[in-house]
């Protein structure tokens, strides 16, 4: 068994009277590829927000590399090595595409980056993602698809140990989806654990070693992809009643 790098226990999150997540438990081993699926509004993004610190959970704990990070602010989690992309892109609009990557390189990854080669490192990430030609372009002027790629690029630039990709492939063509899967697989080969949130099942099945399913704020399945898909609860959740 490899080491657990991230462990979520008993996590609950409420918005006013609405319970978005209830007693969710989830773990991730170092270097693992986890697919996280669930119908719209099931709480996937909320879970990621709690893991990255963008939102604080009401109950439960989050442990990263053996340390309790439940109350740690997001920037400290990013420095420890948790990076995420945003489902609704949040580019730094006043900056060029390249400058967008400077931020995580100069902050989240500062202890891991070569300070004199920040631009080279940023260019390298852009090349991987296929945004090199747009390096100098203002990030606010990108197309939706390129903005999603930028989200992923910016997360990669943080040199994470755990990367959470929140629907990075929405709106991409079939070939582009394959491209992103390749990028994530390549990243995973360097030892980075990846949580992939995706509605495109083909991508989930191709990428994931394990799949977890959320439905209405609860985890209803967690296991190897084939058996999870075959699970009657999961099929019911997806067919919707």
């Amino acid at each position, binding site marked *: 068994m490899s080491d657990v790098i991230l462990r979520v226990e008993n996590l609950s999150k409420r918005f006013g009277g609405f319970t978005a997540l209830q007693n969710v438990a989830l773990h991730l081993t170092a270097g693992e590829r986890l697919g996280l699926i669930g119908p719209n509004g099931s709480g996937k993004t909320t879970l990621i927000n709690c893991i990255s610190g963008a939102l604080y959970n009401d109950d439960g704990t989050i442990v990263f590399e053996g340390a309790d990070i439940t109350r740690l602010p*997001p*920037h400290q989690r990013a420095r420890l090595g948790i990076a995420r992309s945003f489902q609704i892109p949040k580019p*730094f609009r006043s*900056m060029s595409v390249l400058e967008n990557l400077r931020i995580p390189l100069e902050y989240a990854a500062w202890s891991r980056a070569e300070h004199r080669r920040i631009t080279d490192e940023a260019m390298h990430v852009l090349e991987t993602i296929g945004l090199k030609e747009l390096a100098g372009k203002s990030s606010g002027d990108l197309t939706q698809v390129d903005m999603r790629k930028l989200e992923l690029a910016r997360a990669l630039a943080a040199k994470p140990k755990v990367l959470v990709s929140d629907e990075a492939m929405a709106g991409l063509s079939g070939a582009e989806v394959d491209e992103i899967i390749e990028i994530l697989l390549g990243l995973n080969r360097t030892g980075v654990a990846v949580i992939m949130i995706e509605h495109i099942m083909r991508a989930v099945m191709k990428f994931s070693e394990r799949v977890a399913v959320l439905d209405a704020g609860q985890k209803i399945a967690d296991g190897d992809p084939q058996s999870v898909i075959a699970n009657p609860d999961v099929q019911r959740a997806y067919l919707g009643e």
Partner: protein
Amino acid sequence: MSKISPFWVSAAVVLAAGLAFTEIVENQYYFTAIYLILQGLIMAVAWNILGGFTGYVNFGSAAFFAVGAYTAIALDKALGLPLPLLIVAAAAICGLIGLGVGYLTLRLKGVYFAIATLAMAIVLETFITNWSYVGGARGAYILTPDKHLWFDSYSEMLFMLMLVLAVVSVAISRKLNFSRLGRGLAAIRDDEVAAECAGVPTLRLKLVSTTIMGAMMGVAGAPYPFFVTYVDPLSAFNLFVAVNAIAMPMIGGTAHWIGPVIGALLVGSMQEIVKVNISSELNILIVGVMLVLFISLAPQGIVGLVQKHFLKRKA
């Protein structure tokens, strides 16, 4: 030997020109007029660090100018410190208050933050109005020292002092603009959640921003009592001065360090011209109209217009 940047060459030229100006020009009006423009410039640069670079638009920053002025009055009365020390003290005290106020208000966003800073300005004004040591509501008279170094008059010396302070302020703002810290502030302005998730310690950086803003505003205010020789809370917390500090960066452009400089020089000199040739009442109207025009037609200010034009030409 490393190359000297055009910025420092320009700074040296400006300072040399200022010195020459004090030798050549006799008419004292010019020194007081330019003093006021430079005061506006320092305030604009200071406002822009929090309002422009960091994106925390606010109406309260100018209160730190008043606190700087009153710090100078109080310490001049209590200890009789020389002006340079008064400026340093004002910077320290206003920086600290900036830090404290930032800590209390920076959890707020947008309009709420702007209103909270306005409330803070009113609290500070009330405090000073009731502080009898510095004259309370009646105000305080300041005796300007007889000595003015080698300059022909005290106002010539103040003019030169203000020029030095302005150059230093602009240099700090420029340095910040191109630094790792400045990029962190820009990330906060663009999207605070994304900045945090990219590792930017947003609260700490915002506190640095309010501290620098406060200190710089205090520096702009410290020489003011010696310039006007009579200060009361109404003149120190002057609405017109506060509006200028916001209007100048907005008109010049807030994202780049040069924006508030351009805005201050343009708006400031226009106001002096209008004041002399027409009336000082018209001034506030003109700034108001310009501000509305720029916010609605060119929200990126003059710098933004130039950049756009330049990019179009290139494309």
